[in-house]
């Protein structure tokens, strides 16, 4: 059964100087489904995600969330309010404690009282298997895996309808990466959220994806169900997944 389109990239083109990073890219993500975008380094995956977040303005084309155009550079965009984002680096604020990071949106955007916001933050931390004592620590005191989990807690604390994951397992050992992947699956399912994940970690893709899209030279080369990747529907995708360069 196909669910309605939640996010749609419509002929998005983005150039940096003479380099075309996105070249008329069109793609959509359906409600409640988990789309994983794979592709080599520098193919435009992160730029694609940033156009949906309004962090980068396309040169032509646009992105829609629930049929409404995303307004680049506008943090008050209603579409943005639906998104929880897990950054590659975690991107927790150094100057705040873990719970203040997790509750940041509740405190600053929703103007929630500190005690209530702290309670919500501790609950979100528990959902990503972090103990309450982590709440008062500074981000610099956390390991890489804990940092990612705290960042995931920040992404889910407002129970968003959309979750974006930018290279969620980069820099983690395989065991910790597996933990993060499982947490992502669990959270996406429990929220019933639409998820878009950027990765080149194939284990991550296999665990998270309902659907897979491969990006190359700024366009979508192939898109299909996870099973299509495994059955090698497209030779280039097949090579990428197997880690083959394509040169004899």
């Amino acid at each position: 059964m196909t669910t309605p389109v939640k996010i749609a990239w419509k002929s998005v083109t983005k150039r940096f100087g003479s380099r075309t990073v996105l070249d008329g890219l069109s793609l959509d993500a359906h409600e409640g489904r988990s789309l994983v975008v794979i592709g080599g380094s520098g193919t435009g995956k992160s730029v694609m995600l940033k156009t949906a977040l309004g962090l980068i303005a396309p040169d032509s084309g646009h992105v829609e969330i629930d049929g409404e155009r995303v307004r680049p550079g506008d943090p008050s965009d209603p579409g943005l309010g639906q998104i929880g984002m897990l950054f590659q680096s975690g991107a927790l604020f150094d100057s705040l404690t873990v719970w203040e990071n997790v509750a940041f949106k509740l405190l600053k955007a929703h103007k929630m009282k500190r005690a209530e916001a702290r309670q919500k933050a501790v609950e979100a931390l528990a959902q990503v298997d972090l103990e309450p004592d982590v709440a008062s620590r500074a981000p610099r005191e956390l390991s890489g895996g804990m940092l990612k989990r705290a960042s995931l807690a920040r992404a889910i604390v407002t129970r968003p309808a959309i979750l974006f994951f930018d290279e969620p397992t980069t820099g983690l050992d395989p065991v910790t990466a597996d933990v993060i992947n499982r947490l992502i699956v669990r959270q996406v399912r429990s929220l019933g959220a639409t998820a878009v994940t950027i990765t080149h970690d194939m284990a991550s893709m296999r665990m998270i994806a309902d659907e897979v899209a491969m990006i190359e030279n700024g366009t979508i080369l192939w898109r299909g169900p996870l099973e299509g990747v495994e059955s090698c529907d497209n030779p280039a995708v097949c090579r990428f997944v197997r880690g083959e360069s394509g040169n004899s």
Partner: protein
Amino acid sequence: MMVFNPVRALGRGVLSLLRSLGAMTLFASFTLRALIGPFFAGQFVQQLGRIGFLSLPVVGLTALFTGAALALNIYVGGERFNAESFVPNIVALGIVRELGPVIAALMLAGRVSSGIAAEIGAMRATEQIDALHTLTIDPMRYLVVPRVLAGVVVMPLLVLVADVIGIFGGFLVGVTTLEFDPTVYVRNSADILERWDVVSGLIKAAVFGFLLTLMGCYHGYHAQGGAQGVGRAATHAVVSAAMLIFAANFILTSMFV
């Protein structure tokens, strides 16, 4: 073979300078626009402490030594015209109208502009500014406005302190080395100063506060390229803040005389 073309090089340099000035002006206009709307009072208060209170020792010491050196120099110059008695008057005027605001602003350009640029630059490099946006908080309102406003509010206060300490530095040298009578020194210093001398210095201070915090924010916000980029941003922030302070000082002095 490439031949160096000085006209082309000059043209490129001028265009680059104009581009930078344009970008800075746009950034300043975005900052002023961001004044309207949600205000992060906690951030503002925090910046008041960081920019103002923590800068007191460096501003105070600089003003003390500047006032003392100024008194000695004016004495040497005044002696040639039998005008040594004008030392208190000229020290007071020089400190209040010119040196207090400029020296304090330059010290803050070194301490504050570079600090702001490094902090915001590191936030840019680690995606924390992007994170603010995704958390539906305008980075201009959360990061830039509190710093720039704190700069504008706190600089006149710092300059007021610098003025008092600078004049005191001159007084110390005048009384202990140049054999001035303390009462006469204080009376001469107070008599020469008019209200406008102090006010014009404080207006300069507010403008300098705006410029030096704005430059820190601008260069940090546009930092690129990891740790090296953060270092570059800090350097550019200090240099551009210092240059703008000198330029603004000349313009304001021309207006105030």
